[in-house]
């Protein structure tokens, strides 16, 4: 098959199939000063795709705060880096792999994990943890059960094999994700604060190497595929296949090579493979690159320059070495049995030049490819007012409590996380099931705290406040564990940006997130945008997912999300930190009763939120509390039940007089946490709460009993065996999956 000529590309509008619009094609012609050939048009198509260029979101992303004394590397590199003190730093980033996972869930999820892993070790950091934020449709659907099981297996398949623990994340289920699941993977690594390596191709004449896997025909046009079209129409052939064994060897070899000091710049070949890695490295250095494609190791014969440049074969890196030290790399890669090929040179002419069979097959200005990519100020719809709805109290407290606990978004996720190796590396202090995960810094009495969060119901109802809550919830998880929050990364999963109402959601959610980041002093240091999350023309609910990082100095200070069995059995008081609230707006209760998200997003006040976080850290320092758990989906009722189920103690709960019973139990007002405290710790707790101006009320106690009682002004509201709550919570997901299996075989 012959490639189309430049004239054919123009006349037959071949560029459209490469992802370029008519106007974008005209811009390419203008930048080049001539018609692009097929290779060039393909390269522009992929680099100017939404996935690589952020052309619809860029103008809005600029509103995020990205700096602070703790920030060592902000957005723009392979990952962000923050200072955790004592000469150490943490590199972290989250990335979406939604579209591939919708088509080929095991490999889509596995390569999502592999890709984010490479972004972290590329910074010179030793990866130490994964977290995964997943969204699926309801489990009563056979395809959803397949996607859910395979995504989880794929994450485990890659993460377990590379030997990095998966310590946290969350899974939520909503009809909005039925045709378009979300798979967002986060990786965290540790490095010396002065040891950051960047993805720059500097030093004219320095050699450029491709290392790791050979280049095949897999994943060609994966990036443009992720930027348009309906998942229903997507082809599995555009999805890459991961090899975690090779990924592990590549990681060890690259870390060893970086430690040798011979590396000038290093970059993962992720989306758009060789194209984006070479263009981005040259762009950051303000220089150029010349690559001889005949030298790229390939998997199959007859690969064209177009295919080599657009392949998304996994487990490959582009490395620029200091001239004269190539032998260092050869020795290391040989030891790991990895292929390494010298494919070109760094130049200073600002051009990306590709040579094949002795001829120049592409010659483009780097600036035009990366920095001058189109930026769109897409039309934004007027904001819509949240609807006013009366949420009927049609579900009585007892039934509602069981329904909330057995909703798969709230229910026990053990089915998921016990398929992940959560402890390899032997540094996991707190793993999945806790508010935040804690991973020890080897050899130091210090741990990195990490958590992900993001509730699309709130964002759908009120994008700005929902954006604030997404950040606040993730960061609160860190504080609840007693850690000091430092910074965040995010994945912005939204629908079709060509629709003005979707751009309104994106713009407002970013405003809300930015406000929360400022209030909580957690700048955005890395992130990713995934648009066109739609199925059959229907967009998903806007889903910004936040990954937060913090640090705790002295791991003995940590707060568990539930007390130990022994301490609970001895009797502990339960206190509510934060305001009393009885609004059902935006709650899971509301969604269960009305069949859709209703009302406004729950209450949040960022100043109150900040004071709560500061208080929680202070409490952790004094050990007044035996445990702390934040109040989120399912309200105080879910928070207290989860604590009781974990520690195996029943107890008593008291609803304040004058509050609506259902409202108080299930309100998802933000800025709140439940703490379990020894009776003699009450005074300390009150003194601290007063110092931080956080409202405080004793809401009940834990006792060595199998009974749970909720009262208001002495009257019994709900009396229920702890076992009933536990069954609802623990059996929901396994039963949903089993019911599906039975149905399928019937």
């Amino acid at each position: 098959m012959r490639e189309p000529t430049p004239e054919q590309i123009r006349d037959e509008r071949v560029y459209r199939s490469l992802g370029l619009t008519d106007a974008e094609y005209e811009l390419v012609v203008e930048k080049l000063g001539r018609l692009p050939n097929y290779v060039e048009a393909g390269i522009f198509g992929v680099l100017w795709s939404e996935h690589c260029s952020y052309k619809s979101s860029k103008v809005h992303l600029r509103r995020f705060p990205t700096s602070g004394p703790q920030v060592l590397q902000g957005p723009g590199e392979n990952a962000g880096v923050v200072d955790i003190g004592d000469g150490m730093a943490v590199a972290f980033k989250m990335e979406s792999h939604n579209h591939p996972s919708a088509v080929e869930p095991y490999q889509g999820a596995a390569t999502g994990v592999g890709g984010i892993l490479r972004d972290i070790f590329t910074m010179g950091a030793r990866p130490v943890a994964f977290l995964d934020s997943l969204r699926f449709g309801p489990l009563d659907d056979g395809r959803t059960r397949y996607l859910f099981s395979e995504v989880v297996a794929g994450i485990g398949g890659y993460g377990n094999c590379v030997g990095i623990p998966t310590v946290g994340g969350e899974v939520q289920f909503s009809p909005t994700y039925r045709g378009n699941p979300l798979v967002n993977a986060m990786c965290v690594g540790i490095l010396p604060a002065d040891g950051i390596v960047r993805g720059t191709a500097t030093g004219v004449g320095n050699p450029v190497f491709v290392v790791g896997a050979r280049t095949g025909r897999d994943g060609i046009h994966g990036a443009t595929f992720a930027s348009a079209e309906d998942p229903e129409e997507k082809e599995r052939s555009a999805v890459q296949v991961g090899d975690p064994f090779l990924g592990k060897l590549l990681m060890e070899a690259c870390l060893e090579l970086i430690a040798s000091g011979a590396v000038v710049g290093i970059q993962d070949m992720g989306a758009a493979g060789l194209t984006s890695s070479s263009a981005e490295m040259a762009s950051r250095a303000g220089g150029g690159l010349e690559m001889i494609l005949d030298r790229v190791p390939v998997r199959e014969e007859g690969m064209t320059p177009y295919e080599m440049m657009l392949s998304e074969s996994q487990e490959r890196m582009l490395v620029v070495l200091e001239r004269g030290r190539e032998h260092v790399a050869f020795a290391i890669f040989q030891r790991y049995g990895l292929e390494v090929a010298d494919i070109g040179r760094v130049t200073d002419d600002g051009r990306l030049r590709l040579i094949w069979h002795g001829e120049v097959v592409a010659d483009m200005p780097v600036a035009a490819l990366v920095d001058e990519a189109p930026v769109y100020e897409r039309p934004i719809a007027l904001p819509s007012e949240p609807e006013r709805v009366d949420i009927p109290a049609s579900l009585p407290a007892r039934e509602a409590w069981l329904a909330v606990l057995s909703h798969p978004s709230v229910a026990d996720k053990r089915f998921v996380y016990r398929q992940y190796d959560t402890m390899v590396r032997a540094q996991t202090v707190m793993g999945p099931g806790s508010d935040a995960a804690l991973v020890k810094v080897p050899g130091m009495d210090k741990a990195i705290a990490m958590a992900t969060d993001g509730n699309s119901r709130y964002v759908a109802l009120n994008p700005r406040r929902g954006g604030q809550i997404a950040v606040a919830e993730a960061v609160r998880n860190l504080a609840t564990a007693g850690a000091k929050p430092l910074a965040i990364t995010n994945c912005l999963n939204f629908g079709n940006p060509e629709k003005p109402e979707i751009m309104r959601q994106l713009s407002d959610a970013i405003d809300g997130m930015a406000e929360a980041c400022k209030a909580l002093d957690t700048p955005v240091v890395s992130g990713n945008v995934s648009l066109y999350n739609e199925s059959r023309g229907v967009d998903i609910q806007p889903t910004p997912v936040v990954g937060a990082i913090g640090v705790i100095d002295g791991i003995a200070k940590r707060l568990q999300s539930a007390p130990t069995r022994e301490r609970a059995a001895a009797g502990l008081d339960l206190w509510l930190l934060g305001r009393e609230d009885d609004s059902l707006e935006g709650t899971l209760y509301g969604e269960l009763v009305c069949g859709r998200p209703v009302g406004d997003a729950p209450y949040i006040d960022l100043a109150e939120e900040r004071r709560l976080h500061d208080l929680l850290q202070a409490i952790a320092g004094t050990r007044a509390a035996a445990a702390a758990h934040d109040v989120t989906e399912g309200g105080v009722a879910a928070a207290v039940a989860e604590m009781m189920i974990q520690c195996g103690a029943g107890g008593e709960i008291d609803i304040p007089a004058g509050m609506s019973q259902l409202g108080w139990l299930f309100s998802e007002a933000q800025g709140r946490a439940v703490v379990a405290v020894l009776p003699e710790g009450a005074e300390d707790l009150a003194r601290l709460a007063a110092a931080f101006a956080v409202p405080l009320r004793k809401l009940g106690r834990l006792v060595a009993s199998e009974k749970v009682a909720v009262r208001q002004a002495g009257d019994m509201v709900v009396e229920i065996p702890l076992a009933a709550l536990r069954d609802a919570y623990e059996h929901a997901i396994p039963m949903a999956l089993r019911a599906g299996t039975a149905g399928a075989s019937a």
Partner: protein
Amino acid sequence: MKWAVVVFPGSNCDEDAAQAVRETTGDVVDLVWHDATDLSEYDAIILPGGFSYGDYLRSGAIARFSPAVEAVRREAGAGKLVLGICNGFQVLTESHLLPGALLRNNHLQFRCEMVELVVDNNTSPFTRAYQLGERIQIPIAHGEGRFHADPETVEDLRKRGRIAFRYAHSPNGSVADIAGILGEGGNVLGLMPHPERAIVDWMGSVDGRRLFQSMHQYVEEGLADARANA
């Protein structure tokens, strides 16, 4: 005494095992690459967990052909202590240093969690610091940990006290709830659970400590005897 932890391409619990040995015994530990042909300078050798050579053919099936495993075979024959953890256990059965095989878990999923083990032998060099019948907490993390052997072999293991650890509640469908077994000479132990992940309080259990300490004590006594006889 001196320990070696063999590192295959794809091993991922090598550092954890070395750290656990240092932490519990204070001994010297070397990480030894899989192409090593002579391990005679070591008193104890650990084959760590992970996915040696990607475990692509069958867990441990390729590692058995590595030079290091040939060296391990020689040292095991010479009475040195050999401990295979998780993937290391799989390598030992594939190498026929231990009987039986480790099959896919009966529920077909990878499983990582703290499990309760019962100590079935407390006279071996690996288990002497435990009480017989004692229940201990050690985490597992495997997809292929279902021990299988024919009934005669299992009966033989039982009769000769070569079942070192049993699961209190089997997480994988192992025959006779077997979690770890000893070689004929008693100087080779393979187990699926990870003792190196139960070393300090914040890990949730410290029950793995005594396994490494047992080995240390056994070897040091032997070395002391040898010195006394010299």
